[in-house]
């Protein structure tokens, strides 16, 4: 890639502390991702793979301790590259043993203050975010329209209330809400889940951010509404060219909207590359986990070929006890005798196996 990416996450680690188990939950463990301007990156993985926590870390919205402990989150704003985790090291002391993090000391208050002052110029303005469960994500005590107008007044050049209202109505219309002028006055409880998500999208886009993070935007909606929201996102993508980080466990949504895909498992990225290479059913080189994930999609083709729906054996890795070797080793069905020892003992790194296509698996390394 010739131009610098819009968002560049490097070696991000976000941990939580489990009091009951006296151990760290390594929700995000060494994640690196890049999103170029104008592209949609689909982040896919099972529940608990660290997708949402990655997104919340980017937004600085992690409030439980210790939270983000290391890494870089670079974002390009007005030609200036900014690291959202700049000076993070001043607040965190990490003790390592055998390359594993044993303890973390973090000045949470200091870090929080530092992060808030940094993020106040980024949230909404540079990065906007939409969430799952749109009904509870909108403030029930304020009209939908006012919430959109608030984002406009905060982040755009518009300063007059009336103009902000007109602009909010324009956005309500843009996300295909019927009679936007009437809906402007509605409270969230008067709208359906699908309409609330449309309003959320309108609110996110109304502040004209350079990056949109959509965290499971269709989860919690009816199936028919889901496909309509996906249609809307696809349309907005082609019309506005918004750079998007799309997080979902639903591969059909990811494959519909993404230019590039990152597959996450156990808090780290297993594979990333162009969507057509990774999600194509017949592509030869792909991570065993990605392959297993694809055959577990309840599609007509998968069922026809096997006569039943293939599920991935075993449980999702709990990110408290991360094994020394590959995180997927215990569930992997493609371990060969030649690489077995490496799989068990050493964690593979993310290596490029084709232009722009990286995989974290010993199968593809010489």
């Amino acid at each position, binding site marked *: 890639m010739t131009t610098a990416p819009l968002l560049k996450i490097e070696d991000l680690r976000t941990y939580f502390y489990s009091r009951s188990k006296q151990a760290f939950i390594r929700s995000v463990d060494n994640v690196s991702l890049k999103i170029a301007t104008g592209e949609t990156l689909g982040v896919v993985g099972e529940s608990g793979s660290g997708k949402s926590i990655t997104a919340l870390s980017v937004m600085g919205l992690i409030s439980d301790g210790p939270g983000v402990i290391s890494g870089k989150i670079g974002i390009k704003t007005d030609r200036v590259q900014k690291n959202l985790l700049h000076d993070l090291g001043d607040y965190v002391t990490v003790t390592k043993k055998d390359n594993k993090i044993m303890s973390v000391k973090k000045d949470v*208050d200091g870090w929080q203050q530092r992060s808030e002052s940094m993020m106040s110029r980024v949230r909404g303005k540079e990065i906007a975010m939409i969430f799952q469960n749109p009904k509870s*994500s909108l*403030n029930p*005590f304020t009209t939908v329209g006012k919430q959109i107008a608030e984002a406009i007044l905060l982040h755009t050049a518009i300063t007059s209330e009336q103009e902000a209202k007109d602009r909010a109505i324009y956005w309500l219309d843009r996300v295909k809400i019927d009679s936007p002028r009437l809906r402007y006055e509605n409270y969230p409880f008067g709208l359906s889940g699908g309409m609330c998500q449309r309003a959320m999208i309108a609110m996110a886009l109304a*502040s004209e951010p350079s990056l949109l993070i959509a965290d499971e935007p269709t989860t919690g909606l009816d199936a028919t509404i889901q496909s309509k929201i996906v249609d809307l996102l696809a349309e907005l993508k082609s019309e506005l060219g918004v750079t998007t980080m799309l997080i979902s466990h639903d591969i059909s949504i990811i494959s519909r909207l993404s230019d590039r895909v990152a597959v996450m498992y156990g808090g780290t990225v297993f594979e990333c590359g162009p969507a057509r290479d990774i999600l194509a059913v017949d592509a030869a080189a792909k991570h065993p986990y990605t392959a297993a994930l694809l055959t577990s999609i309840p599609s007509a083709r998968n069922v026809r070929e096997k006569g039943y729906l293939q599920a991935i054996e075993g449980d999702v890795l709990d990110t408290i006890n991360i094994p020394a070797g590959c995180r997927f080793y215990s569930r992997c069905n493609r371990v060969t005798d030649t690489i077995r020892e490496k799989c068990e003992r050493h964690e593979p790194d993310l290596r490029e196996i084709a232009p722009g296509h990286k995989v974290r698996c010993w199968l593809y390394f010489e």
Partner: protein
Amino acid sequence: MKLSAIRPIALVLSREMAITLLLLLGVSFVVFIILYLSPGDPFSALLEGQLSSGESPSGAHEVLGVPPSWYARYLSWLANLLQGNFGTSIRTGMPVLGEVLRVGINTLILTLGSMLVTLLIAVPIALYSVVRGINKISWPLTMFAYVVSALPVFWLGYIVIYFFTHKLGLFPLAFGYATTSTKFGWLYALLPIFVLGVGNGTISEVIRSLRDEMGRVMAEDYIRTARAKGASVWKHSFKEGLLIPVTEIVAAKIPFILGGAVIVEQVFNWPGMGRMAWQAAQDRDYPVIMGIAILAAVFVRLGSLFQSVVYVAVNPRASKE
């Protein structure tokens, strides 16, 4: 405010008014029965030692036109009340309504002021501990507030008087009269207001309920949305996290604060309802006691009326009921 917003408020108001009327009727009846059943009567209290032992007070009743049966007495009191006549004090001969309103204002100043003191202490502590969690500042502050609000108000009152009036000579003993006499006389009123505000026992409850409510609201999805769009978290959490719980707890605590006011008025010579009620109870001054009971009930109802109006005005869902 638009007409559509006023309609639900008017509805709530009229419903609350109807409940208030029934409640006042109930209160007056119960208080009347208690007074009737309790020993002693105003004449033997007033004429103590002047009646010969065998003489019954029924003669005096007859002369003064007091109906013989209890229900007739209640009904005649009620009939007078409906005409706006609260009767006259047996002790002073003054009309009850004027007297009770005069002292009622003083009590209102005392209770509203003390509520303000309570909130000024409790709200910052609660909000601070929501934001920062339990730390080196919030924990001792909360503990201190809990201990302080467990102090009995009469004890606190006497300690404060001993210190400020006796030792430092800063405040006079007769607070009530000080409020009217000089230009800065109102300053003297601050001491009893402060004592009741600290000692009425509600600080700890305000802290606890506000911390729980605000903490719950802060974890709501819509607050996360507000943060994600760079908006003020306080602006978005204000209605559900602060306004509604504060009005709720203030309304619920009015009876307790009024109870505390009775004691503080005694301790500080504050010419309020509590003091008058105390005096009237000793004199068996029935019309005054009834008047004060009614006024106290009105205060309590006004509190919950205020709470309902705020709740309906703030919460769009409530107005759809």
